[in-house]
């Protein structure tokens, strides 16, 4: 009995230490997990999602990438980026360059929230008297595709400032990643960490390391482009959980956590996936 209690205490301590570990320790442990699990993946290649661990499917995917299905979206996005609003301004006036990926997501201490690149695009529109774009697909995904394309090769380098509110947002994203939800009772980590490389129905589940690198994505299943938050919502729906709102606090914090976990990799969006 005494032994059990001691064991319980030790276990409890280890657990609370990791739950409270700072972002940097989290990231090291997170990246180590995948590097140990998939030692065959060469450095930096996790940005290619499931294809980093599936050599067979990769060939097919590389053939698709030769005539990328997201090309139309990039062109459309460039046009929208330069389209003049009713007030004479445009998105181009809000950003010094379309190559913005490396600056997002970031903690905005004035607004007291995480701002994603897609949110910044919508904020720009609203500030200029335009309606915000819908947040999962369409125009916003196109603008995002153009900006991501211009940002290719930038380093993922999310900063979590030493500000309790920023750390709280990060921790909320972290908790969301590790909590089981929905009628099927799965966490993101169940599938994309402990289940990475295993099959869920017809799909092999990708490692979460690299998950945030390549958005938006042209997905064959959608026959269209979709934002990262569209994907989050899809994965939540699949386990029969009510998804959160795209660009709402929950998914923005999740993006903050998930992108930070991939610090050190490169942005390579837009992407193509099954």
């Amino acid at each position, binding site marked *: 009995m005494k032994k059990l209690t001691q064991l319980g205490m030790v276990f409890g301590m*280890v*657990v*609370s*230490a*990791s*739950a409270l*570990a700072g972002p940097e320790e*989290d990231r090291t*442990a*997170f990246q*180590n*997990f995948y590097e140990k699990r998939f030692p065959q993946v060469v450095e930096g290649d996790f940005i290619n999602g499931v294809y980093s661990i599936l050599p067979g499917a990769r060939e097919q995917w590389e053939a698709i990438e030769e005539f990328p299905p997201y090309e139309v979206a990039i062109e459309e996005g460039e046009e929208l980026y330069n389209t003049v609003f009713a007030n004479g301004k445009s998105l181009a006036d809000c950003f010094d360059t379309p190559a913005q990926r490396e600056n997002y997501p970031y903690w905005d201490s004035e607004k007291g929230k995480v701002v994603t690149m897609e949110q910044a695009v919508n904020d720009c529109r609203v500030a200029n008297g335009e309606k915000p774009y819908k947040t999962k697909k369409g125009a916003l995904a196109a603008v995002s595709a153009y900006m991501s394309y211009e940002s290719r090769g930038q380093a993922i380098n999310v900063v979590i400032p030493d500000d309790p509110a920023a750390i709280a947002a990060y921790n909320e994203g*972290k*908790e969301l990643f*590790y*909590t*089981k*939800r*929905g*009628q099927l*009772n799965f*966490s993101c*980590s*169940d599938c994309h*960490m*402990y289940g990475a490389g295993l099959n869920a129905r017809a799909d092999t589940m990708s490692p979460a390391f690299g998950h945030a690198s390549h958005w938006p994505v042209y997905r064959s299943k959608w026959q269209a482009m979709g934002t990262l938050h569209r994907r989050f919502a899809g994965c939540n*729906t699949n386990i*029969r*959980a*009510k*998804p*959160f709102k795209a660009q709402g606090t*929950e998914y923005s914090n999740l993006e903050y956590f998930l992108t930070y976990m991939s610090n050190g990799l490169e942005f390579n969006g837009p992407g193509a996936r099954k």
Partner: protein
Amino acid sequence: MFKGLVGAVILGSAMLANASQSADAVIAAATEANKQAKSLGYEWNVTGKAIKAAQAALKAGNEAEALKLAEHAKYMAEASIFQAGDEKKNWMLRVPK
């Protein structure tokens, strides 16, 4: 897992206790519980539909069917609340060290 089972048993007996209630009352209870699950961020996407199905059955005058559907909806709403509480305590077990 064990706790999950205990929870299911408790919820199961709560369901039996409801057997004498009206469909209307159980629908109201399911709706209330689902609201709570939502505020916790743990609403299941099947619960709202189940509540609607119960309401439709009631409207069509099928009280027994409505009661059955409502009890199932209430069970799911309560299970998602249980899940929220359980996860608050356990999610950190999955964080790699």
